[in-house]
């Protein structure tokens, strides 16, 4: 009897090991086309610089006011703080001693020279889709930067998340290396868009829900960005002005704000019309999800009265008594309409609350060099007042989203802005 149990346990163990070995995220090696692919010549460097914009590498690897790509920015995650490293070609503190294969191994397999597994705060589950040729151009560009001496700061991750064993287990569950495979039936634009959105653009890092272990889900159906405290909405789009929004930061439907203002300011505004168009083709092809638009119970009358009074006092001058917003003399977007505004429709009210609390400007772009700004109301309105005015805007002019409570507002007062 005892022997049978032992045999059974043995079989289970062998099967488990076999399964783990089969699922193991093996490093995948694809050789360079030729050493010419990462040679330090103008064509490679310019293409690499463009791709670095598309991947918004600077968002993490450049600290505010610091030297480009010299690292040092802290990325706060629910598991602790990850420090972005220096990726300039300094031999000791940067990637100056790396080969093109080393760079590929980091980007595609999430493995640093010496075999150290990298934390997926570096979005290699997306970057693994990047082709070897593009990786080589990126490498050529980074090697062309002036080397900066800036030693990597240690991460501050809570146990057990900081261990290599935990990372190995995470990779077993959630990571499989593999370059983007085009779907010929979808056409060139769709495939280029999918390659940029799902690969370098790493849009799913924010626009997909993350599970308890920080892995992004499939699809781009929206998710709460942990720690930063913004909701990245679904990217499934039926917006005819999507390309304009991505390129300039504003469209007749509204303006980008919060972390997306940074994405447009640092990354998307620098991409070509062709690439922005391709991304729009891909995003408008995603299956729509109706979950965001279920009409909710209207807020109580007293709350609507208070909200309406505050709206008249603080908001109506720009957004209009009827929530229609305003356009510039050329018909271009000025003050966004709130009637039918998608941000106000979202079931999760965090973005509307934070826009009222923090205000802000859309980014300066070629298409919108002098953006309009929204005043911050955190110094002026208390939690109950913010809740009332947001509830009012979410339930007026055809909007029908649920009311917001003062407690929800209060939770977002303390989120660090910088």
């Amino acid at each position: 009897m005892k022997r049978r149990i032992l045999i059974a346990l043995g079989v289970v163990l062998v099967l488990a090991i076999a399964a783990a070995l089969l699922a193991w995220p093996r490093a995948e090696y694809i050789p360079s086309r030729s050493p010419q692919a990462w040679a330090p010549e103008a064509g490679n460097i310019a293409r690499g610089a463009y791709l670095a914009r598309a991947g918004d590498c600077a968002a993490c690897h450049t600290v505010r006011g610091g030297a480009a790509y010299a690292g040092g920015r802290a990325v706060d995650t629910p598991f602790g703080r990850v420090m972005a490293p220096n990726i300039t070609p300094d031999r000791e503190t940067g990637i100056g001693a790396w080969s093109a294969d080393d760079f590929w191994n980091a980007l595609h397999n999430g493995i640093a020279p010496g075999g150290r597994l990298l934390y997926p705060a570096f979005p290699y589950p997306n970057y693994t889709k990047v082709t070897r040729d593009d990786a080589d151009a990126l490498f050529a560009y980074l090697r062309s930067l002036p080397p900066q001496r800036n030693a990597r700061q240690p991460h501050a991750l809570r146990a057990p998340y900081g261990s290599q064993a935990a990372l190995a287990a995470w990779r077993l569950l959630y990571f499989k290396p593999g370059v983007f495979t085009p779907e010929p039936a979808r056409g060139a634009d769709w495939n280029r868009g999918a390659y940029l959105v799902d690969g370098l653009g790493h849009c799913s890092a924010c626009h997909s829900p993350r599970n308890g272990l920080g892995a992004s889900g499939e699809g781009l159906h929206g998710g709460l960005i942990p720690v930063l405290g913004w909701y990245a909405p679904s990217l499934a789009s039926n917006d005819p002005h999507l390309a304009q929004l991505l390129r300039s930061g504003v469209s007749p439907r509204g303006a980008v704000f919060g972390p997306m203002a940074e994405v447009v300011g640092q990354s998307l505004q620098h991409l070509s019309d062709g690439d922005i168009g391709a991304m729009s083709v891909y995003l408008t092809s995603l299956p729509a999800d109706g979950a965001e638009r279920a009409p909710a119970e209207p807020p109580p009358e007293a709350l609507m009265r208070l909200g309406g009074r505050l709206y008249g006092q603080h908001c109506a001058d720009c957004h209009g008594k009827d929530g229609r917003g305003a356009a510039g003399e050329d018909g271009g977007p000025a003050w966004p309409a709130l009637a039918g505004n998608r941000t106000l429709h979202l079931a999760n009210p965090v973005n509307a609350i934070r826009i009222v609390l923090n205000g802000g400007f859309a980014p300066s772009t070629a298409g919108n060099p002098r953006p309009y700004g929204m005043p911050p109301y955190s110094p002026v309105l208390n939690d109950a007042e913010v809740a009332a005015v947001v509830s009012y805007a979410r339930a007026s002019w055809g909007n029908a989203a649920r009311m917001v409570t003062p407690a929800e507002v209060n939770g977002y007062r303390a989120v660090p802005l910088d």
Partner: protein
Amino acid sequence: MRGFIRPFLLACALAGPAAAQAQAQAQQQAQQQRVSGTLAQRLAACASCHGSATAPPAAVGSGSERQYYPRIAGKPAGYLYNQLSNFREGRRQYPLMTWMVQHLSDDYLREIADYFSAQHLPAPVLDRASLPAAELERGRLLVIRGDTALKVPACIACHGERLTGALPAIPGLVGLPRDYINAQFGAWRNGSRHALAPDCMGSIASRLSLADVSAISAWLASEPLPADPSPAPSLSRPLPLACGSAPEPKP
């Protein structure tokens, strides 16, 4: 038949709201008010704290009388631009200001600086009767004469005889709330406010005691704006110490 109707109804249900919404949106755009896009309209966000021709600078907190936000109207454009870019690049730390300007271009920041440098607003003045005479006198001496023992030059040596600043980039010191002045000395002392190197005000702040800071802020915040509040047209060179924000002209 049922096999056909259900997907058809579903398709209508899905397409209905989207089509209605698109139509509503087109209608709405047609009826939108038009704005001419002046800087006053674009920069309503700045005026909400710093004040405008129609509304004084905001008090801190709802129902409070206490002033903190500095008056930016009429300060030299070079100074305002330097501060906007200091916030954007992290040399000055006030998270809400960094938040506001972090994605704005140099060109736009210069335009914003020019715009506010040409504004004229009344300034808050603290009632001198409520302040200790000895403290006011110490403050006045530091502002007008400085303290050679402490190696602290007089404020007027750089900020102008009338304390209204000097073109192109030295700010005026009158018309500011006392809390704001105190907070700036605190920020220089603890390293959260920097200017382009060499950071002259950082050095001066480190040589002053807290009592002296308090004396300076008491006197400055209670000194009314002069009849002509515009900055001096130029600096009297050489400056008592080197300043990265007002570098000596190259020979």
